[in-house]
């Protein structure tokens, strides 16, 4: 009887039983569905027949958007690859002055949102900026016509700015990959007649390729997400285009159609990333780790190594931090009088609410997945975590539209049932903003907590259950204490990303509601960087917290002592500038 009965009772019956057995599964599916709603909404609006401006768009601006977006991605991808892997190789394999400082200092630019760096760079390098004024003084030039200076607010400028704040992703992942490589493999390449450079290109780089691909993909996703930089630099990218079509051309459907095209683009990127991740570990043929060879660099080489690591840190972090600090000290009164504390309080409370919710929901989802759940829950959870890759502008559309429909439905219901008009309950409130943050950043807390729970052996669950704990009690008495650290990490990552998040906030915020990010963006766009410097500095300061966390992870990870890769990979995804 056994074989046939099993065949008949297969996965379907089992799935059914699970559903009946625990509310965890049902809850997980509901959560995943609500997080995925914005994505579905965007697609369904795009396919709604009315208001089709696609033909118009594709005849006019679309080719330009595509061209600029691809160029931007190409430039930022290449730039971050070179800087990221180059500096990672230097600090892991070579010894030169300042190496241990660069180990963590190279991460600092992560704390600076791209739009903040864009403002600072423009402020310093444009015609009226410090550098050009200085050059005019030295050479006696009088006007713009007397000399040539590259245009800062351009595609090239955007590529430079984004490369400088995004390369740490590639640095972090390739550094971890280099550390994981068994030194023996490199030594073998030396004994087979390769010099260090050849060893790097023929062994180390190919071995680290999967990790580097993941890093560059994350960079490209962030590039697509950026709205502040491209708006300020007037680079007509896809993201800027969506914003433009929606708010200036007033065409939701057009924006949704563009968003759908872009989402397909993003899905391809996710596919590449997943593929690279699945092959992330080549099987190590040797488990021997000795101390890394540490080529000692001297003289000119040491100088160039130090310089190569110094420049990105200075341009990506030290310069903006110094400039902003200077302005903040000089102009803090203006900033404070511009309701700085209100904006700061708004930013803090929004981010804190989103962080707490993201951690709770992420834990629920991760634990629900762990409880079994099978295919249904696992795919739901995976689907819910696509949000982190989808640009904020797209998510904003997807949040706005369902909420508006829900609002009007509630309003009608309330009028009919109680005769009380409700107006807009959800859309245009901070609920919409928090919902947007959650759809985008839930993947962060979920990923962190899932990785952390994954380190707890399933026997723990079994032991707790057989000792009389229900799943909920086991979570409270066993898992919760064990992942407490990761709960904090997850919360912090979400919190900082929400502080920095611009596109979602600027589109979804209630009327006249300012956070630090929107305040800085609007003031600085109006050439009032000095007055908003304190706000920008606050965002950067908050962004340093996860950098410290990551540095600690790096300090703990040494070759041969476990894999630093898993931990840092999870945490990287969070550091959206």
């Amino acid at each position, binding site marked *: *009887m*056994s*074989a046939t*009965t*099993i*065949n008949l*009772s*297969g996965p379907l*019956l*089992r799935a059914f*039983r*699970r559903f*009946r*057995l625990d509310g965890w599964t049902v809850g997980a599916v509901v959560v995943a569905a609500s997080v995925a709603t914005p994505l579905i909404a965007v697609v369904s609006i795009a396919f709604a027949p009315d208001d089709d401006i696609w033909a118009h768009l594709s005849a006019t601006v679309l080719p330009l958007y595509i061209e600029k977006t691809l160029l931007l991605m190409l430039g930022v991808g290449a730039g971050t690859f070179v800087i990221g892997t180059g500096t990672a190789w230097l600090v892991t394999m070579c010894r030169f002055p300042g190496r241990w400082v660069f180990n963590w200092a190279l991460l600092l630019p992560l704390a600076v949102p791209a739009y903040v760096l864009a403002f600072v760079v423009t402020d310093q390098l444009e015609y009226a900026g410090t550098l050009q004024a200085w050059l005019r003084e030295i050479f006696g030039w009088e006007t713009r016509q007397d000399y040539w200076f590259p245009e800062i607010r351009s595609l090239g400028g955007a590529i430079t700015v984004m490369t400088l704040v995004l390369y740490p992703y590639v640095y972090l992942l390739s550094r971890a990959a280099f550390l994981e490589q068994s030194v023996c493999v490199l030594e073998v390449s030396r004994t087979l007649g390769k010099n260090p450079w050849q060893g790097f290109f023929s062994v180390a780089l190919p071995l680290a390729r999967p990790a580097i691909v993941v890093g560059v993909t994350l960079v490209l996703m962030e590039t697509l997400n950026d709205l502040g930089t491209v708006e300020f630099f007037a680079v007509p990218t896809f993201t800027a285009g969506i914003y433009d079509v929606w708010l200036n051309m007033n065409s939701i459907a057009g924006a949704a159609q563009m968003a759908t095209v872009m989402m397909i683009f993003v899905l391809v990127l996710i596919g590449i990333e997943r593929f690279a991740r699945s092959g992330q570990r080549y099987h190590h043929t040797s488990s021997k780790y000795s101390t890394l060879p540490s080529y000692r660099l001297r003289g000119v080489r040491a100088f160039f190594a130090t310089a190569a690591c110094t420049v990105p840190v200075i341009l990506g972090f030290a310069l903006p931090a110094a400039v902003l600090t200077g302005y903040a000290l000089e102009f803090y009164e203006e900033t404070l009088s511009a309701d700085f504390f209100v904006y700061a309080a708004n930013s803090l409370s929004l981010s804190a609410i989103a962080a707490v919710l993201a951690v709770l929901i992420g834990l629920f989802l991760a634990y629900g997945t762990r409880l079994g759940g099978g295919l249904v829950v696992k795919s739901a959870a995976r689907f819910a975590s696509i949000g982190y890759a989808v640009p904020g502008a797209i998510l904003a559309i997807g949040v706005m539209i369902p909420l508006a429909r829900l609002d009007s439905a509630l309003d009608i219901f309330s009028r009919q049932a109680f005769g009380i008009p409700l107006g807009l309950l959800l859309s245009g409130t901070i609920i919409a903003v928090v919902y947007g943050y959650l759809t985008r950043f839930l993947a962060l807390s979920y990923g962190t907590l899932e990785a952390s729970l994954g380190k707890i*052996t399933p*026997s*723990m669950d*079994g*032991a*707790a*259950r*057989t*000792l*009389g*704990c*229900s799943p909920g*009690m086991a979570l409270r*008495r*066993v898992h919760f*204490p*064990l992942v407490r650290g990761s709960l904090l990490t997850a919360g912090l990552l979400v919190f900082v990303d929400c502080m920095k998040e611009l596109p979602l906030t600027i589109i979804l915020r209630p009327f006249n509601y300012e956070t630090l990010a929107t305040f800085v963006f609007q003031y600085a766009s109006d050439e009032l960087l000095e007055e908003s410097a304190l706000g920008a500095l606050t965002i950067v300061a908050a962004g340093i917290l996860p950098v410290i966390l990551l540095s600690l992870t790096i300090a703990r990870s040494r070759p041969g002592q476990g894999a630093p890769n898993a931990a840092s990979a999870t945490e990287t995804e969070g550091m959206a500038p």
Partner: protein
Amino acid sequence: MSGLHLNNVSHAYDNRNPVLSGISVFVAPGELVCLLGPSGCGKTTLLRVAAGLELLQVGQVTIAEKVVAEGRDGLHVPPEKRGIGLMFQDYALFPHLNVFENVTFGLTENIPERRKWAEKALARMDLAEYAESYPHILSGGQQQRVALLRALAPEPRVLLLDEPFSGLDVTRRADVRAETLGFLKETGVATLMVTHDPEEAMFMADRILVMDQGRILQDGTPVQTYYQPQNAFVAALFGPVNRLRGKVKGNRVETPLGAFEAKNLDDGETVEILIRPEGLRLTLSGEAPEIQAGDGPQGLETGPETETRNGAASPQQPRLARALSARPLGRSSHVELAVADGQGSEIILEARVPGVFLPARGEKILLSVNPRQAHVFPVP
């Protein structure tokens, strides 16, 4: 029927390969039953099904006369409501709780007498001074004892042990086993233990269930399992065996080592004769053969089935063999020897002789077979 009863349990992780096929197990209160089998034979799955950590697909699980899982109608009492203790192979001690908190984890209500029991048990297991310590500083043996006490603290009616000694050093294993056995026998709990180590099963078990590929091949006492294996798999479980082949003729098989009984087997059927290395008796030619350890227990219960059992050879004349190599193993010696097969060729045999027995290469040896250690099975 109190105790643990698994009735006709089948289980599959995917639809093609059943892990368990129609298995029935009964463990009485106070009894210790060992599931013995190679890794991947499904024994851990059976344990998880009994504990409720795995959903039952087909069959029925009863604990203390209460049905806790029913394959057909989907009844599934969750593990926390079954009153079972489960000890994991990796012990699964909670790293964030100290030893005493670990042991008392399962005491949901604050029951003073059980807490007192925990204190006493820790003292008895020489763990009193570690009560406030965290698991990671304990040795493997200490962790094992904490895990055992933790599983027993809530007074489960059924205790499930998953490879409880595999994480221990060989030198510590024997002590811990004896200690554990003594402790379990005092509590009177029905214990189902999983192991792949036949010696461990022999030592611990009241009954051994030999499992392979999701089926139970034999259910018997340790002595029965060793001396009356039901098939070649069970016979070979205790280590390498000498294998001879032959054809049945008139309820007997003729081999170079003599004739073996082959009752109830048709003439012309090919059979395999398995002889344990310790079942070969060796004497240097000239000495009289003597009774050796391992000849089989006196008064071994011979039920009706053993009457018709095959394998016991009729009294035989010692054969002449030639030593090929001899190696001392400590308690016994390992001897490799060659016997003429009567067709101009030789067969190679392995023997294990108690004490030091190291004939020189080429030395003549008289060889006879302990009839209790030779088993005849039809070749499938």
